[in-house]
C-alpha cells in the first residue's frame, strides 16, 4: 500500500528508526516498557517536524529524554531516507506515518514476530 511516492516500507522504516533510538533497556523505562508500542504509536501520531531528521529528533526526545541510542545502522537508515526523499516527500512521509501510526506500529510488531519465528506469508 502506498500514497504518492510514499511506501509502507519507508513508513515502517521510519518507525523502526525511532524505536531503535529509544534506549528501552534503560531502567528509567522499567515501569512502562510493557506499553512501549502504545507509547511509540501515540508519540508518533503527535510528533512534528519540518523534515525527517527533525521529526525523529522530536519524537525520540519526547519519549526518551536523554535516554537515546544512536548506532551506525540507525544513522545509515536515516541517511538513506534523507538521500532518497526530497523535502516534499519527507513531509509527505511524516504525514503518512502520523496518520497511520497505530496500524503501522501493529504491522511492524507483527512482522518482527514473524521474522523471529522464521515465518513467511501464509494466508
Amino acid at each position, binding site marked *: 500500500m502506498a500514497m504518492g511516492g510514499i511506501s509502507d516500507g519507508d513508513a515502517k522504516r521510519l518507525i523502526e528508526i525511532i524505536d531503535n533510538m529509544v534506549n528501552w533497556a534503560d531502567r528509567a523505562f522499567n515501569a512502562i516498557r510493557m506499553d512501549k*508500542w502504545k507509547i511509540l*504509536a501515540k508519540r508518533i501520531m503527535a510528533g512534528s517536524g519540518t523534515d525527517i531528521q527533525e521529526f525523529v529528533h522530536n519524537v525520540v526526545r519526547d519519549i526518551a529524554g536523554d535516554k537515546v541510542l544512536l548506532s551506525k545502522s540507525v544513522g545509515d537508515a536515516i541517511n538513506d531516507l534523507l538521500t532518497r526523499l526530497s523535502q516534499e516527500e519527507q513531509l509527505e512521509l511524516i504525514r503518512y506515518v502520523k496518520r*497511520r501510526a497505530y496500524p503501522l*506500529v*501493529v504491522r511492524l510488531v*507483527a512482522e518482527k514476530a*514473524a521474522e523471529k519465528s522464521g*515465518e513467511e506469508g*501464509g*494466508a
Partner: protein
Amino acid sequence: MPAPDNIPIQRLLSEAKSRFKAILASLDADLDTDKVAEICAGHHHVRENPIREIEPERDEVSAMASAVSVEVRIPLPKELKRIAINVASLSLKSPYRAFVASLFIRRLLNRLNESYAQLFQEKFGLRELHIKYVFRQFEPFSEDPNVSYEDGGLYVEIPVRSPPSLEGLIIEHHYLPTLERPSLSINGRHVELNLRFSDALAFPIIEGEEITLWALAPVEALGRGQELRARLAAAFEEAREKALEDILSLSGVKSELIANMRELLPEELSEYKPAGPEEPKCMFCGARASFRVAKSLERFVDVDRIVAFNIMACAPCKLAYDIENARRAGAPLCITPLPATPNAVELLGEFETLIQDFRTRGISILTHQLPPVKTALEEPWARILSWIFYHAVLRDPDEFGLTMLKSLKDFDAALFRFFLARKVMLYPFIFTIRPGAMISAWTTTGKKKFVLNLDVASEFVVLPGAERDLTLEDLDALTPLAEKGKNSIRKAYTTIRSIYGLG
C-alpha cells in the same frame, strides 16, 4: 443455467420446468412437483414479481448493463412495503435509547425466527433447511442439485462448477427453528453457517434518528401472497410483544419497575415525544420523563451528554441506565450488526477462463452484468456479513448482548484474516465490504458515572478503544497483514488489543 441466446423464452421456461421436475422427483410423495417446478422455472417472469424491476427480460439486459452500479441502496420504505413488513421502528434519540433498541432487536430476531419457523412448518411442512454448496470440477458443464426431504428437513446439495483454486470448498448453510444466535465454523475448506430463518429474512435500516426492522414477506399480488402475508403480519405483532416481555424479564430490570415499564416502554421506545413545557424532561434525551434515575447529579461527569439537568428519565433511558448501572463493572460492549455495504467488486480471475471455456464449446451462460445490483433481498445477507466481521473478534454475547474481545485461546486466524481484508466471495464476484454496526460502549474507570457512549452506524469506528478507536481507515492500513502467516496474525491481534486499549 446455460442458455443459448437465441432460444425463445417459452421454450426456455418449458425446458427449465422439465429440469426442475427431474431435480424434485425425489419429493414426489410430499409435493406437487409439477406445480413447484413451474414456479421455480417461471417466477422471475411473472409480471407482478418485483424482481422483474431489476431483472428485465433478456432482450432488455444489454440496455440495462450500463446502468448497474455496485452500491444501489435499498428502496424507500414505501417501496419496501411491497416485499417486507415493518416490524418495529425505534427512536435512537439518545445513546441509552439506542442501547435499548439493540436489546430489543436482538430479542425480536429470535421471536421473528419463531414466527417464520411456525409458518414454514404449518404451511409447507418445513422445519429445517440445509443447503450445501460443493465446489468441484465436473463434466458436462452443469450438474443438477440433489434434493431430499426427511422429517421436516429439506436438504439441497448444489454442485458448483469451480475453477481449480476453489476445488474442494464446501459451504453449508443450516436454517434452524430454535437457534438462539448465528454460529460459524471453518474447518479448512469446509465452512458451516448456522442461521435462524430471521437472519436470512429480516434486516434493520437506520434512517436519521430511527432504526427500523424489516422482515421479508410474500408479495400480496403473487399467488397466496395476501393470505400468507396477513398471517405473517399477525405473527410478527405477537413476536414484538413477546420480545418486549423478554426485555422486561432481563435480570437488570428491577421488579418494581416492570408494571410501569410494560405500560410506557412500547410507545416511548418507538416514538420520541419531547416533554411539554410543564412536564419533567428526561435528562438523557429530553422526552417526557416518568422515572427517577439517581439521587443527585453529582455522579455524572459527561456534562455535554446531559440534555436536562434533573434526575429524571423516560422509560427507555431509565431501562438502559439501570442495566448499565448493574453491569458497568463487567462487559462494556454491545454491538448490533447492520447491513454491510459493498464498496468494491472484482470478478474472480479464474472465472473469466471458465467462461472462455464455455464459449469455445458454443455455450453461453446467463450471468449478472458486473457488478450485480444490490437489492433489498441482499440486505439480510449484508447484515450477516457484518455479523461475521464482528464474530471474528468478539465472544458470544451474554443475555444483554454485551460482549468482549475474544481471548487468544478462542482466536481463529482464518476469521481474523477476514476481519482484516473484508473480502467476500459471491461467486464468481469478490466484494470488499464496509461493515456496519450500532455500537454501545461505556468506560469503566473510577466511580464516576459516564453516560453510555455510542457510535450509531458511523461506518467509520469499527471498535471503540480506551486508548484510541479502531477505525475503518486503520483497518485499511492493517489489511496487508491478512496475507501473513499465523504467528504474524496472532501477534497482530494481541498488539491491536493492547495498543488501542480494546476491551
